[in-house]
C-alpha cells in the first residue's frame, strides 16, 4: 500500500501531523471509496468473466434502444446518454457546491446541493423507467419451436441469436446471466445513487441549519462530494461495460 | 455413569492445578519474585531444549509408525504420478533440511541464551549482508522447485495423447457414473434438460454418436499401459474425482466440463500381489465436500490387461439399445434387459 510510507524523514511522516495534509475524515472516506471500488470491481469483473465464458451476449444496441415517449423508434444508446449526462451534470453541481463551501458561502452551497439532489433523483427516475421498460418488454422468442413472449428478467433473456422461423426472423433465448448482472450491478449502483441522495439531503439540511457555519468549515460537504463523484465514477464503468462493449 | 466419573475426574484435575497455581503465587511472595522468576526461566529453557530433542525423536518415531501406511512404499500406480512422487521427495528433502536446522536453532538459542545475571545481550540490530543471504538463498531454492514443479504440472495437465481412451465421468449426489464412447470413439452429446429417470445422464439420443455409447455405474474398467482421458462432469454440486493411487484429482463442476488423463501402469491384480492385500481396489474418492453423504461417494477403478478390458467392453451393450430396444435392429435383447437394471440410478 504505501511504498512511500517507508521513506524516512520526509517532513510529512514524522508524526504529530497528517502526512497527507488531509483530515482523518477525508482519508477515511478515500479509503472507504477504495474498498467500495473493490466491491464494484468484483461485480464488474465477475460480469466480464461470465461474458468471456459464453459464446454469445446480448447486443446492447438492441437491448437499450428505447426512449420514453418515443414509441418504437430505434434509438440505440440515446436514453443511456441522457442518463450519463444527468450524472455528469450533477457531479459538476456537486463540485460547485464544494467550491462554494470553501468560500463559506452558505447560499451557494444550498443552491448547488439542491441541483445535485435533483440530478440524482432524475437519474434514479431514468433508471426506474429503464428497468420497467426492460422487465415489461414484450419480445417474441422461439422456445422449443414455440413462440413465447418475454421481457428481460433475471431468469429470462430474449436477446439471443435470431433464427428463421415460419418466414420471419425470431430471437432465441440468450444467456440468462445477462439479466442477473444487468439488474444486479445497475441496481447496486442505483442503490449507491439513492444513498448518495439521502446523504446529500442530510447535508443540505445541515447546511440550512447552519451547522457547518458554526463548525467553521464545510468539510462534510466535501466528504459527501467525494462519495457522489465516486458514484459518478462507477457509472462511467457501468456505462462502458453494459452499454458500450 | 462413566461420563460422570470422567467429568468428576477432569474437574478434580483442574482444581488441583488451580490450587497449585495459587500456592505458587504465595511461594513466590515468600521466596521473592526475582528468585522465582529465575527458577521459572531455567525450567522453561530446559523444557524448550527437551522439547527439541523429544520432538525430533517424535518426528522420527512418527515416521517409523506411519510411513508404511502412506502411498509411497507401494509406488505410484500411474506413469504421471511418478513425476509427482519425485517432486514430493525433492520437496521433502529440502523442507526437511530447513525444518531441522531452523527448529534446532530456535530451541537451541532459546536454551543457550536464557537469562543469566552475568550475560549482556548483544546489540545487533541489522546486517544487510545477512538479510541478502537469506533473501537470495530461499529465492533460488524456490525457483528450482518452481521449475521442477511446473515441468511436471505442464506434462500432467497438458493435452492427452491422441491415442488415449476417453471415458466420461459424471458425479452426482452421491455416486459416480461412467460413459464410454463405443466403437466410433465419439461421446454422444448431452443436454442436462433431457435428464429423466431412465436417461439419467441427459444424453441426447438424437445425436447418432450416442448410439454406441456404453454407460456403467460406480465401477470403471481401464486397460493398463494406455493413457486414459477422463472428461469430467457434475450434475448437481461440485464433486472431485480423487485418485490417490494415481496421484491425481480433478473437480467435477456443473456446467463446466473438466478433464484429466493418466497412464495406469499396475493392474489391480498386480497391485493385490504388490501390497499383499487380496482386497485391494483402486478407489475414486470424492474430495470436494458435496453434501451429507460426501464420505460415501465411492467409485471403483479396475485396471486390467488390454485383453481383459476388450473382453469386458465387448460384453457391454450400448445404452441406446437398452433404452430403445425397438429401434435397434438385431440385438441380444436378453442381455439388454439385464443391463437396464444397472443403468437405472442406484439410490444410496
Amino acid at each position, binding site marked *: 500500500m504505501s511504498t512511500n510510507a517507508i521513506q524516512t524523514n520526509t517532513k510529512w511522516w514524522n508524526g504529530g501531523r497528517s502526512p497527507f495534509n488531509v483530515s482523518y475524515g477525508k482519508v477515511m472516506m478515500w479509503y472507504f471509496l477504495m474498498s467500495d471500488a473493490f466491491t464494484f470491481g468484483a461485480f464488474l469483473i465477475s460480469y466480464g468473466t461470465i461474458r468471456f465464458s459464453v459464446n454469445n451476449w446480448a447486443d446492447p444496441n438492441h437491448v437499450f434502444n428505447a426512449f420514453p415517449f418515443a414509441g418504437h423508434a430505434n434509438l440505440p444508446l440515446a436514453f443511456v446518454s441522457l442518463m450519463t449526462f444527468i450524472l455528469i451534470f450533477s457531479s459538476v453541481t456537486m463540485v460547485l457546491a464544494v467550491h462554494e463551501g470553501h468560500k463559506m458561502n452558505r447560499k451557494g452551497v444550498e443552491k448547488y446541493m439542491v441541483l445535485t439532489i435533483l440530478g440524482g433523483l432524475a437519474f434514479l427516475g431514468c433508471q426506474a423507467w429503464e428497468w420497467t421498460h426492460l422487465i415489461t418488454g414484450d419480445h417474441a422468442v422461439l422456445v422449443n419451436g414455440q413462440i413465447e413472449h418475454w421481457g428481460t428478467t433475471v431468469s429470462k433473456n430474449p436477446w439471443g441469436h435470431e433464427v428463421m422461423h415460419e418466414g420471419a426472423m425470431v430471437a432465441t433465448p440468450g444467456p440468462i446471466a445477462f439479466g442477473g448482472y444487468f439488474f444486479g450491478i445497475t441496481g447496486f449502483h442505483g442503490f449507491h445513487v439513492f444513498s448518495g441522495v439521502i446523504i446529500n439531503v442530510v447535508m443540505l439540511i445541515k447546511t440550512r441549519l447552519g451547522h457547518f457555519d458554526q463548525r467553521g468549515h464545510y468539510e462534510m460537504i466535501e466528504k459527501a462530494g467525494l462519495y457522489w463523484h465516486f458514484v459518478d465514477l462507477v457509472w462511467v464503468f457501468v456505462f462502458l461495460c453494459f452499454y458500450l462493449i | 455413569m462413566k461420563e460422570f466419573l470422567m467429568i468428576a475426574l477432569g474437574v478434580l484435575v483442574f482444581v488441583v492445578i488451580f490450587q497449585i497455581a495459587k500456592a505458587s503465587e504465595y511461594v513466590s511472595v515468600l521466596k521473592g519474585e526475582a528468585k522465582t522468576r529465575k527458577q521459572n526461566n531455567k525450567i522453561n529453557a530446559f523444557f524448550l531444549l527437551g522439547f527439541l530433542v523429544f520432538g525430533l525423536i517424535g518426528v522420527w518415531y512418527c515416521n517409523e509408525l506411519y510411513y508404511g501406511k502412506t502411498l509411497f512404499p507401494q509406488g505410484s500406480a500411474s506413469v504421471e504420478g511418478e513425476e509427482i512422487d519425485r517432486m514430493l521427495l525433492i520437496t521433502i528433502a529440502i523442507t526437511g533440511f530447513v525444518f531441522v536446522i531452523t527448529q534446532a536453532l530456535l530451541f537451541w538459542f532459546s536454551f543457550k541464551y536464557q537469562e543469566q545475571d552475568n550475560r549482556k*545481550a548483544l546489540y545487533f540490530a541489522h546486517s544487510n549482508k545477512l538479510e541478502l543471504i537469506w533473501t537470495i538463498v530461499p529465492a533460488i531454492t524456490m525457483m528450482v522447485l518452481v521449475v521442477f514443479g511446473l515441468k511436471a504440472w505442464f506434462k500432467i495437465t497438458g493435452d492427452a495423447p491422441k491415442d488415449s481412451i476417453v471415458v466420461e465421468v459424471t458425479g452426482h449426489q452421491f455416486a459416480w457414473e461412467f460413459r464410454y464412447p463405443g466403437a466410433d470413439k465419439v461421446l454422444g452429446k448431452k443436454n442436462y434438460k433431457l435428464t429423466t429417470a431412465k436417461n439419467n445422464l441427459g444424453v441426447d439420443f438424437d445425436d447418432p454418436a450416442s448410439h454406441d455409447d456404453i454407460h456403467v455405474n460406480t465401477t470403471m474398467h481401464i486397460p493398463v499401459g494406455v493413457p486414459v482421458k477422463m472428461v469430467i462432469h457434475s450434475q448437481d454440486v461440485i464433486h472431485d474425482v480423487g485418485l490417490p493411487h494415481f496421484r491425481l484429482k480433478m473437480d467435477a463442476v456443473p456446467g463446466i466440463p473438466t478433464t484429466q488423463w493418466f497412464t495406469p501402469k499396475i493392474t489391480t491384480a498386480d497391485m493385490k500381489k504388490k501390497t499383499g492385500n487380496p482386497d485391494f*481396489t483402486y478407489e475414486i474418492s470424492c474430495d470436494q465436500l458435496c453434501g451429507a453423504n460426501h464420505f460415501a461417494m465411492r467409485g471403483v477403478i479396475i485396471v486390467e490387461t488390454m485383453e481383459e478390458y476388450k473382453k469386458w467392453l465387448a460384453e457391454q451393450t450400448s445404452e441406446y439399445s437398452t433404452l430403445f430396444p425397438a429401434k435397434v435392429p438385431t440385438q441380444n435383447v436378453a442381455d439388454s434387459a439385464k443391463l437396464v437394471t444397472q443403468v437405472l440410478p442406484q439410490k444410496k
Partner: protein
Amino acid sequence: MSSVATVHHEDVHGSHDSHHEHHHHETFISKYIFSQDHKMIAKQFLVTGIIWAIIGGLFSVIFRLQLGYPEATFPWLEDLLGHWAAGGKLKPEFYYALVTMHGTILVFFVLTAGLSGTFANFLIPLQVGARDMASPMLNMLSYWFFFLSSIIMFSSLFVQTGPASGGWTIYPPLSALGEASSGAKIGMDLWLVSMAMFIVSALLGGLNYITTILNMRTKGMSMTRLPLTVWALFFTAVLGVLSFPVLLSGAILLLFDRNLGTSFFLSDIVVAGKILPNEGGSAILFQHLFWFLGHPEVYIILLPAMGMSSEIISINSRKPIFGYMAMVGSIFAIAILAFLVWAHHMFVTGLNPFLGSVFVLLTLLIAVPSAIKVFNWLTTLWKANIRFTPGMLFAIGFVSLFISGGLTGIFLGNSALDLHLHDTYFVVAHFHIVMGVASMFGMFAGVYHWFPKMFGRFMNNTLAYIHFWVTLIGAYLIFWPMHYQGLAGMPRRYYDFSGWSSFNMFNGLNEFISFVAMIVFAAQFLFVYNFFYSMYKGRKVTDLNPWGANTLEWTTPLNPGHGNWPGEIPEVYRGAYDYAKDGKEFIPQTTPVGDDESKGH
C-alpha cells in the same frame, strides 16, 4: 478501572472538530457497553472472541469424537444436540454443520475479530501515541456490527434445518441449492447475512486502524519508528479493507442466486430429480471471488500474530529485533503477494494450466519474505538474554509452528504436488498449524504480554506455563501425524472412513488425535480461568513498565481513562527497539537521543 483522565472524544480529534460541546457522564452503559474508548472496545472484542473460541473449539471436539470413535455412541450427545445426534451418534448432516461452523467461527470470529479486533484496537492508539482511534464512533459501531453478526450466526445454530454445512468456504452450488443439503436452507442465508454484517464490521474497524496509524501518530513517531505490531496491524487492515469487499460481492451474488433466481454461479444442474432452469453461470467464479478474500484472510489472521511475536521476542530477548526494515519490508511483500495468489486454492478446479503456473510462481515467492522473517527472529534470539515470560514462550511457540506450517505450504503451493495433496489431511495439517494454532499462539502471547496493561494485574504464571506446554505439545501431536494421513490421500471432511479400503488403516491414529484434541481443548480452560480470575484477583502491577519495554503504551498510567495520557502525549525520539544499546538495558522511545549515543538503525 478508575478513570484517571477522561478526555472526551472531540478533544481527541483535534481542533477542527471541537466545536460542539457536550459533556457526557460515564454511566455503566457508556463505559462498558456502548463505550467509545478503544481500550474498552478491545476488551469487548477479546471477551467475545474468547466465548466464540470456546464454542468453536467445542464443535471440533464433538466432530473429533465421531472421527476418533466412529463405532461408539455417546448418549449425552443426544441430550446436547437433540435429533442431530439421535441415539448418541452424530448425523452426517450435523457433522458437516459442525465442521463448517468450526471453520467459520475460528477463522472469522476468533482469529479475525478476536485477534486483530482486540489488538488493533488496544495497541494502535497506545503505541502510536493517540488519545483514541480516528473515529471512536465508527470504532464502537465496528464492535456492534460484529456483535450483530455473532448473534445472527449463533441463531443459525438453532434453526430447524441446521446451520450452514457446506464448509467454511461455502462453495456453491452446494451452498446455493436448498435441495442439495439441509444446511443450504435457511441456515445458509443466515450465514451470508451474518457475514455481510461481519464485513461491515471489518471495514469500519480497518478504515479506522489505517487512518489512525497514518494520521494520529504523535510527534516524532515517524513510520519507521513504529513498533512492528503496528506495522503488522496496519497491513492487516489494508488487506481487510481491500479484500473483504470482494467477499461481500460474492456473498451478495450468492444471496441473489439463492433467493432471486439469478444464475451467477449455477449452470446445468439437476438436483433431487429437478431440472433447474439456470444456465451460463460458473460455480468456479465464486471460488475466485471467495479466495480473492480468502487468501488475504489467512494473512489477516497471521500478520497480527507475527507483529506481536516480533515485539514480544525483542522485548524478552532484551535485544533489538533483528532487521527492523527487513521485517517491515517482508510484511509489505507478504501483503502484496497475498492479493496475487488466490487461485492456488483452485489448482484442481479445471483452472487453465498456464494461468495456474503463474499462480505457482507467485505463491512460492511468499516463501522468501517468510524466510526473512524466520531468520530475523532466529538472529534476534542469538546472543540474547532471554526471559521466558508466558508471552515469550508463546511467541517462540509461534515461530516454531510458523516454520512447521510454512514449510508444508511449499508442498501445497506447487501445483503438481497439489494434485495429490489437495483437500487431504495434509491441507488440514498445514493450515491448522500455520494459521490456526500459530495465530492462536500469537493471540495468547499478546494476551499474556499485554494483560498487565489491560487490567493492571498479572496473570498467574504457573497456569500459563502449564497451558503453554500442554498446548504446544498437543498441537504437534494432533497435527503432525495428519501429514501422513494426507500423504496417504485421505480426504478431509469425511464423516467416516470405514467404507474405504484405501483409507481405513488410520483408525488407531484418528482415535489418538481425537483424544489429544480433547485434552488440549480442556487445557484451554486453564487460560480462560486464569484470564477471568486474574482480572479481579491477579497479582497487582506495581511497576508501570513491568517488562522493561520501550513502546509508548507503558508510559500511560496504570488504568488510563479515555484519552490514554493524563497530560501531554509524549513525544517520540527513537525507534521502538533500542534494547541493549550503549550498555543500557532498554531506552524508551520517549528518551531523547543523547549526544554520546552511538548510531542505531
